[in-house]
């Protein structure tokens, strides 16, 4: 077993780890509203979403090998890695990918700890951009494309991030407003029951679309690493075990459920009633599907958050907690640069130690950071039991310590 084979194994494990965090970070996008309106019991909701993600991931037969091409220049246009990066058994490329993935995972875990629905795709792209800048310099990043189509960091990441929540918000607001206008005069109990069914249907559609969209990214990155080391040569297909393991990782992550984020999206932004839930999920599903149909890359997280906000704006008299929304937007703005900084630091660290040792060191750093954040989360756990508690009520089981008792 050569050195680069061991690094490759680390890259594959880390990529699957990223896929897993991608799953539980994004459960909320599809299921937060259904859980908040009690259309589905929390455990049933995450199980349904997990299964649909699994099916969705298997349906993504399309090769996503060039996924990183939009933001960093580490591949030729046919998807093979650049020759200059594969000279040394591919370890130069593997190191960039590994550092980038670690940047993405650490940022995903931190935002989960804070209960913020930030974009997993931004975390991944940010990590890769940072590691590329560290490894290849500023010119290694595809900032603006070549002007012939929507491309580059600006076109594929930044502009969609600004536009997609607004579009989703407008659609959800119009939908919510229409629904309330149309059902004036119908008894509330009668409507709520009907809308819960509609909500389950539209949320399922979002889960399925999420599986096809997001699992592909990890599949592409693992395959790219395999090509770099010469373990795979076909740029038109991906190995079946890669597809199966990525599908399982994202489904398991979804099933585990990022309860902290589900709580923020379902209870924190607006008090969601079933008609709003239906409008929000329909808007998300329609915007995600329409965008991928038109080749307009976007983040499911941004769309889902925009939709939920829109459903609060569209309901007459509903309260939107703009402070929570502001915190989220702040998290979106810093996701890409923060993940980039972590990615760059990881690359420098790995490069400093060098070779296999460097890869192992950054991997250990990742494990330590993940363990730390998991332990921190246990101090104030949020799970399927308390995910729907009132947002504003003071937590009775967390008495404030009087000032001055700290030593």
């Amino acid at each position, binding site marked *: 077993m050569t050195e680069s084979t061991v690094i490759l194994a680390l890259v594959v494990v880390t990529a699957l780890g990223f896929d897993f965090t991608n799953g539980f970070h994004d459960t909320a996008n599809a299921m937060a509203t259904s859980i908040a309106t009690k259309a589905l019991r929390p455990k049933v909701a995450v199980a349904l979403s997990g299964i649909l993600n699994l099916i*969705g991931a298997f*349906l*993504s*037969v*399309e090769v996503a090998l060039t996924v990183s091409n939009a933001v960093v220049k580490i591949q030729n246009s046919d998807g093979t890695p650049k020759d200059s990066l594969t000279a040394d058994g591919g370890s130069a490329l593997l190191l960039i990918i590994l550092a980038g993935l670690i940047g993405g995972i650490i940022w995903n875990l931190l935002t989960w700890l804070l209960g913020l629905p930030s974009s997993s795709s931004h975390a991944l792209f940010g990590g890769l951009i940072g590691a590329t800048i560290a490894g290849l310099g500023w010119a290694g990043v595809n900032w*603006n*494309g070549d*002007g012939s*189509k*929507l*491309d*580059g960091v*600006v*076109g594929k990441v930044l*502009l*969609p991030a600004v*536009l*997609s929540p607004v*579009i*989703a918000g*407008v*659609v*959800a607001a*119009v*939908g919510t407003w*229409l*629904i309330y206008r*149309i*059902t004036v*005069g*119908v*008894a509330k109990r*009668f*409507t709520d029951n*009907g*809308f819960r069914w*509609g909500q389950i*249907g*539209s949320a399922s*559609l979002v889960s*399925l*679309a999420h599986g*096809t969209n997001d699992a592909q990214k990890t599949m592409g990155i693992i395959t790219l690493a395999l090509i770099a080391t010469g373990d795979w040569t076909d740029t038109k297909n991906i190995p079946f075990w890669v597809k199966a393991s990525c599908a399982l990782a994202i489904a398991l992550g979804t099933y585990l459920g990022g309860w902290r984020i589900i709580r923020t999206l379902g209870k924190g932004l607006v008090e969601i009633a079933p*008609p709003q839930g*239906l*409008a929000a999920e*329909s*808007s*998300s*599903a*329609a*915007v995600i*599907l*329409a*965008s*991928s*149909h*038109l*080749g*307009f890359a976007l983040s499911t997280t941004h769309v889902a958050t925009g939709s939920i906000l829109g459903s609060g704006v569209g309901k007459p008299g509903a309260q939107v907690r703009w402070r929570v929304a502001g915190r989220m937007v702040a998290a979106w703005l810093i996701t890409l640069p923060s993940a980039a900084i972590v990615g760059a630091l990881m690359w420098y660290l790995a490069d400093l130690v060098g070779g296999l040792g460097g890869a192992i060191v950054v991997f250990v750093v990742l494990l330590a950071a993940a363990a730390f954040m998991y332990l921190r989360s246990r101090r104030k756990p949020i799970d399927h039991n308390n995910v729907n508690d009132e947002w504003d009520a003071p937590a009775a089981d967390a008495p404030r310590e009087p000032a001055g008792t700290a030593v």
Partner: protein
Amino acid sequence: MSNLGFALEGAWKVLAAGLVLGAGLPALFALGIRSLAWGAGGDAEVSHARPNPAGKVIGYLLFAIVIFGVLLGITFIVASGFGKTISFEHIFPTIVDK
């Protein structure tokens, strides 16, 4: 054309499709619920009007349209996985190569 131009061009298309499918279908669904309530009468409506059988028929008809829209969405996801897409060129949706 610059990235901004491409993005705005894509954005209004997404907005248009989103409004038709993402707000239009839920509105139809709401109309369906309203029809069912009209059909059920009594406690289903604030006015406690008498049941009207036509409401049920119209209601289920509207639900059928919504379900057709959702099925179209699922077909699109599955089809794009196999390198196909749905064309609306002949108004009636057909599956074609990408």
